């Protein structure tokens, strides 16, 4: 049996193919994962029966839109998740880790050089609200609770 022939076959194919860049870039993206400009594009790569989103409320309980801070609500959650991952190393309790992540998120927003200073005033006493979304049968259930409150 000739063990070299499969390798020679692969080599011949590699030499012949005109899609080398596709193969190299695909491998780079899968190996390097989330390293800009590379990505393994994990958005909606998995689905679950439950998920959550966040939003902000001011001291009076009115919703604070995220757009004036020049970030999307989706980014808000991504920042919260990354801060939560850091906080989980310090706190075993998930609620405490979330409260810590919420505070870090509000601090991040306070430090942003946003164009409208009045938006920053609204962050005094603001709360990060978490809404859990899950499916039961053919019903969507939403449950809200405050994660943290700004000083």
């Amino acid at each position, binding site marked *: 049996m000739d063990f070299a022939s499969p390798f020679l076959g692969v080599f*011949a194919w590699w*030499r*012949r*193919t*005109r899609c080398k*860049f*596709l193969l190299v*870039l*695909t491998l780079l*993206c*899968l190996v*390097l994962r*989330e*390293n*800009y*400009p*590379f*990505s*393994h*594009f*994990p*958005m*909606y*790569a*998995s*689905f*679950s*029966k439950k*998920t*959550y*989103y966040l*939003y*902000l409320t001011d001291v009076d309980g009115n*919703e604070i*839109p995220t757009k004036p*801070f*020049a*970030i999307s*609500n*989706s*980014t*808000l*959650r*991504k*920042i919260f*998740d*990354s801060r939560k991952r850091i906080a989980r190393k310090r706190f075993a309790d998930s609620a405490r880790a979330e409260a810590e992540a919420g505070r870090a998120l509000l601090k*991040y927003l306070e*430090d*942003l*050089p*946003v*164009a409208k200073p009045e938006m920053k005033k609204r962050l005094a006493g603001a709360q990060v609200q978490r*809404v859990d*979304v899950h*499916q039961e049968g*053919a*019903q*969507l259930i*939403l449950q809200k609770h405050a994660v943290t409150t700004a000083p």
Partner: protein
Amino acid sequence: MTAPRPIPVFALYERLVMRALFAWVVFQATPKGLIVSGIPAPNGFARLVDLHFLLAPPVFVFCQKLLVVALVLYVLRVVVWLALPIALFLHVAINAVVNSQGGIQHAMQIVSLVLLAQTAAHFYGLWRRRQGESRGLLESRAIWWSQQAIVAVYLVAGITKLIVTKGKWIFDARWLGVSIAKSAYMSFYDTHNQAELQQQLAVAHFAVTHGWIIMLIAALGLFLELGSPLMLINRVWAAALGCALIGFHVGLTHSMGLSFVYNQWLLLIFMVNVPYWIATAGGKFFRPPYATSP
């Protein structure tokens, strides 16, 4: 041993339109201001290069002007060997800062990767020219590699879905309604558009109550992603699958608020390639599908 297969050749008018439109997309996909207070979670390129210099407003304004100059030179095909690396560096650096705030966005990667592909193709082409390759192939290769970069983005997304779910992605898609509801509320807290929220919640409710239909639609989406390399067969496949992917993006925009507008533009520019079909229909500049290099 068999010789390498030739790369497709693109006509002058196609190259010109693609160049101008791609430069416009790169400009649009580069943030016009950095509303950040630092680089708290360096990601990718920001881990390799200290990009704090971009946070100084005068430096940022200078970089923006430099990007415009580089893109104009690129469109005019003047000192491309300098214009492309400058445009790539500035576009990637500015977007790396945006992606170093603790959350990764996935809207700009495709533009950066196509720009990377064009830069790599240009320098590879210069080296090949020294080996005696025809000068005319230089830009056609850049377009060919751009097409491969676009395909890679979709292919990687499809493969990741299979890896993460251990091949069960289509089956798990029956929970898509939960994700649509989440996206609907997330979009609402961006824009406070009540009508859009109600529209997307109606889609979420449909998804929750029609799991099998959602699984079929998800299967179609996954097929398009994993079948994206078929776009490299010829112009007909590129245009057909390019239109199908744009259609899928439009559907996702309306149902989940996920527009991925730069994906749509790049598909339109490099895959659908409208000028070619207009020229072909007119018969003026007709070329057989994918004339190839000798």
